[in-house]
């Protein structure tokens, strides 16, 4: 047991819970705040959405999170806002008022989560006024499933709430506890549960060496499913989300290449502005990665260290020639990302190492990046196949071709035979047909509910067709947006 000190709906709160406690369990079972619901315990439905606030100048910035897969201990020094906190003295928050007015609730079970997503959107709009575009609405609500209402009334509520008068109450920005919970672990080798929250890389690597059996947690968006879906007990945890060195993005030069060192603990949401500017195709992919709740929590480092063959960012990073830095008490080493993934969920990371940073080289002149994610559903879904293509065209000839796929092998993997086929080729139908054929050398995918072997192989080949069409007739390229209407 360890103490967590945080703000709960504007009031300081302290409690002791075991390391494997999620925010949802903390709320529903320990604090008897049952407004936050459990629909799936896997971050898919959003019924458990809460807002987590952090200091930003004089105010708190709130982001949405799935309480079911977020460790309660990560609340230390933060502000947790739940559905119970929004209405004060009988006055409903505009998100609540609008949901009633627009009839956005039927059975009501998803409603608290939706109201909380709307609350973070509302908060965002008041802090950074900008038009509520369909894309922004879609992003804000994409992580909330509803089986009753048909969604449009909820969308109407999102639009309506902004016309309602609102004065930001003081409690929203109450003073945050500054105490950090960097407790020493007395005997990390013992079976005693702990939730360690190191603040520096040195402290992190030391813990990693002392307790290699402990699990590392960043956003928890995948790790926590081991607890809720596979019944594993996660009682020794090292939280990487406060390690200063892991939270920075640094523009620099590495091995002669300009680029960015991105801390392993940087979330997808935090990466969006950088990618929007330098890798629009990557940013576009981020919009389709998980849901807003997941993007607010999930990290680039976690997506890599997790080594899932269907993680969304690794194929793109492989295509971009990213490097991964591994740190331990002995120092750090750097390797090309393709050398990091060894086999299904197996990596080159030693037991005493952590993924500390990722280097993404800046795109060199005239190079292009294309990323296509194929999933059954438009949002809140996992890839069946994800293809990333990086190349440079000089006088009609392809150079520096790097292609990688997710969902096609036991790891995210480069399509080296296809790359070799295209390297130095002119953009012709024949060249791309040859590349499609080489793909059979590169991959023998498996069948599962997300796609059959045949579909995966065919769809991956079709992405070459798509690339060819987009290069041979650039004005015909279509990027699908959610609203084709």
């Amino acid at each position, binding site marked *: 047991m360890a103490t967590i000190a945080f703000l709960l709906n504007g009031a300081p709160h302290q409690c002791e819970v075991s390391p494997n406690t999620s925010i949802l369990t903390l709320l529903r079972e320990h604090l008897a705040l049952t407004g936050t619901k459990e629909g799936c315990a896997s971050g898919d439905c959003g019924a458990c959405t809460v807002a987590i606030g952090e200091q930003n100048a004089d105010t708190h910035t709130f982001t949405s999170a799935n309480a079911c897969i977020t460790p309660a201990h990560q609340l230390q020094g933060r502000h947790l806002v739940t559905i119970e906190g929004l209405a004060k003295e009988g006055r409903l928050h505009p998100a609540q008022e609008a949901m009633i007015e627009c009839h956005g609730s039927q059975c009501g079970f998803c409603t608290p989560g939706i109201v909380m997503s709307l609350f973070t959107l509302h908060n965002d709009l008041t802090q950074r006024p900008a038009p509520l575009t369909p894309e922004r609405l879609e992003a804000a*609500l994409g992580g909330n499933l509803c*089986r009753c209402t048909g*969604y449009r009334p909820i969308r109407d509520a999102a639009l309506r709430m902004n016309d309602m008068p609102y004065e930001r109450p003081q409690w929203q920005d109450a003073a945050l506890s500054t105490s950090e919970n960097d407790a020493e672990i007395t005997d990390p080798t013992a079976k005693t549960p702990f939730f360690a929250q190191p603040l520096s890389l040195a402290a992190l690597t030391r813990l990693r060496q002392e307790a290699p059996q402990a699990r590392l947690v960043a956003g928890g968006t995948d790790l926590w499913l081991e607890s809720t879906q596979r019944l594993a007990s996660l009682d020794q945890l090292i939280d990487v989300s406060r390690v200063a060195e892991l939270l920075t993005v640094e523009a620099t030069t590495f091995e002669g290449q300009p680029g960015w060192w991105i801390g392993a603990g940087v979330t997808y949401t935090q990466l969006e502005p950088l990618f929007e500017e330098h890798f629009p195709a990557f940013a576009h992919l981020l919009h389709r990665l998980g849901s807003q709740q997941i993007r607010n929590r999930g990290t680039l480092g976690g997506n890599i260290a997790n080594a899932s063959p269907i993680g969304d960012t690794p194929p793109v990073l492989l295509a971009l020639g990213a490097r991964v830095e591994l740190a331990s008490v002995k120092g750090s080493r750097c390797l090309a990302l393709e050398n990091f993934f060894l086999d299904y969920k197996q990596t080159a990371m030693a037991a005493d190492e952590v993924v500390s940073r990722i280097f993404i080289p800046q795109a060199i002149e005239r190079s292009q990046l294309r990323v296509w994610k194929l999933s059954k559903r*438009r949002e809140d879904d996992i890839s069946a196949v994800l293809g990333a293509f990086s190349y440079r065209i000089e006088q009609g000839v392809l150079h520096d071709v790097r292609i990688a796929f997710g969902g096609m092998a036991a790891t995210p993997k480069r399509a080296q035979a296809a790359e070799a086929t295209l390297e130095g080729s002119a953009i012709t139908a024949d060249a791309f047909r040859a590349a499609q054929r080489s793909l059979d050398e590169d991959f023998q995918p498996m069948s599962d509910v997300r796609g059959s072997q045949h579909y995966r192989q065919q769809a991956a080949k079709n992405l070459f067709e798509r690339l060819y*069409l987009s290069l041979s007739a650039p004005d015909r390229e279509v990027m699908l947006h959610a609203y084709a209407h």
Partner: protein
Amino acid sequence: MRFDSPAEQNVSDRMKVLGQPLRRIDGPLKTTGMAPYAYERHGVAKDQLVGYPVGSAIAKGRIVSMDIDEAQASPGVVGIVTTLEMERLPKVDWNVAYLFGGREIQHYHQAIAVVVANSFEEARAAAALIRVEYEEDQDATYDLAAVRQERLSDDVEPIDNIGDFESAYASAEVTLDATYTTPGQCHAQMEPHATIAQWDGDHLTLWTSNQMIEWSRQALATTFDLPAENFRLDSPYIGGGFGVKLFLRADAVMAALAARKVGRAVKLALPRPMSANNTTHRGLTIQRIRIGASQEGKITAIGHDNATNTLPGGDGENGARATRRFYAGENRLLINRALEIHLPESNAMRAPGETAGLMALEIAMDEMAEKLGMDPVEFRIINDTQVDPSHPERQFSERHFIECLQRGAEVFNWASRNKAPGSRREGAWLIGHGVAGAYRDAPAETSGARVSVRPDGSIRVETDMTDIGTGSYTIIAQTAAEMMGVSLEVVNVDLGDSRHPVSAGSGGQWGAASSTAGVYAACLALRKKIAERLAVDPEALEFSEGYVRYNDQQTALSELASAGSITAEDSIEFGDFRSEEYQLATFGAHFVEVAVHATTGEIRVRRMLAVCDAGRILNPMTARSQVIGAMTMGVGAALMESLAVDTRHGFFVNHDLAGYEVPVHADIPEQQVIFLEGEDPYSTPLKAKGVGELGICGVSAAVANAVYNATGARVRDYPITLDKFLDRLPEIA
């Protein structure tokens, strides 16, 4: 009171509160997180322990042994109940699969044990330590297509065999013979099944999530072999049901068994990954439809042969039902082959039968219209019938299907639709339009309520009716407000408690019509009681603005009740004329526009319109919400929803919300709903019928027809995913 003849002019016709688009009265509770759902009712019973269920890891066979020693010794464990401790528990006929007890395994994830511990984590950890040895039956079958093929020559008693179908079909001028398949579908309601159970001697209270309180009370009586009076169920808020919470389910039985064993209150929720295989699903179907018609488009023969999966004793998803009463045609052969397949229990899901049936029939109608060279709207109009084709002596009480089609065509601008499949492009998108008809019966069930005027002048309504998101709280309050002449704000509605009068419950699209009729009856009884007190003829009383007015006098309701609440209770019972002399049903027409990407085949629904004929609409806001929600579920059924069957091991693979995909925000466009003005006096005193199931009927086929219209590629195998027609998209010019 009995409803023995069509309703005449009555108090409810005032329509001051009824019929108004009023916000749901439970809205504030739901948007502030204050509405209590089953699993979180910490206050109702002291010292609640937590139960965690264990499901069978095989689909068919028996348990040889269970080793619970390690689990028993696990920290925090208070008790374990295993299925081997008891004989198979009896069940009522509504349930197809047995819920608990004995060695026999009927389906994957059948409940076989429940571990009770001080905390959820302890119960879950211990549950993982139970070791089970099984003996698997080698003769189990999980493949509907294979079993259907083997048993096609079986002699099955038809649902309808009217005229001479085979001859009429053989001699028809234009014919269609096509086979359609629909997959298993999961209710995927947002709230998982959950129950808190507490025994007091041989009396049991269950705080649970259940659509049909009385049915489940009766089922408990059978299962636990105790009088029904010994059971109390309380289910005030239900996080969605769609049929999966119609019957007693394993969560309630396990919680009750566990609570009995440990002598304390136990709460238990079915984890989401257990829901699909432990509970029920909409059965899979393979439907062969044959239609014969004259050149002019008159249907002369219609055959619908439905095959579906069921465990022994069930009907599965009877798609042929949909064809019984929808279209004219003198020669009819309708068959349901409920085939024993050892998948989990197929049972009711929103509009059971019609949903899957119309997914097929309404594509067939589209195909037939094309063969005839007719507008599919016109083809349906030509084949409308005002009598039940299976019993031509019975009229439909009200049937305005033609009007639904015509009104829809006008509003949707059907005339300007794409007429040649695969021919309309807008940029990268192929545009298509589809239409389908909707049909669903409008049954009614006995329904009771207790209504009081309280000393403060407020009205309280008590009934065991449930609100599964449908809006029961609101329309019941509206009914009482209308009948007692008060404003909605002073009506207090208490639902879902078995201590209240027995209602119709929420199912089969009968809930709204029946339960409001029950409240109407109770209000009439209360008005009569008040009249007796005042010694006035009840007919002479007028209730308005919180007053009773009679003979130039008026008395406030609060004054009448100042010495204590005045309470009356009654129930409405529906006479045979309603079901035997007339056929009552609801009708609709769905119009859909889709865009299909010309190169990738990605499908986007662009606009949807439903026109509904469902009698008097009690609250246009809640009714519309029902219909658009159902249309959304229909889009899911058309484009993505499918339980993937593992035919080797007999279970649904995608048993969570990550794998079983339902529509999300970005999938759903603007939806328009039009309710035809009208009343059905044959239905209830309020002249209302249900809409909650009508809304899903036919939607998926309208989407399917629109995809065909956009691409020229017909898909008869739901869901319509792009891999099924990618190779048939039109050549890109």
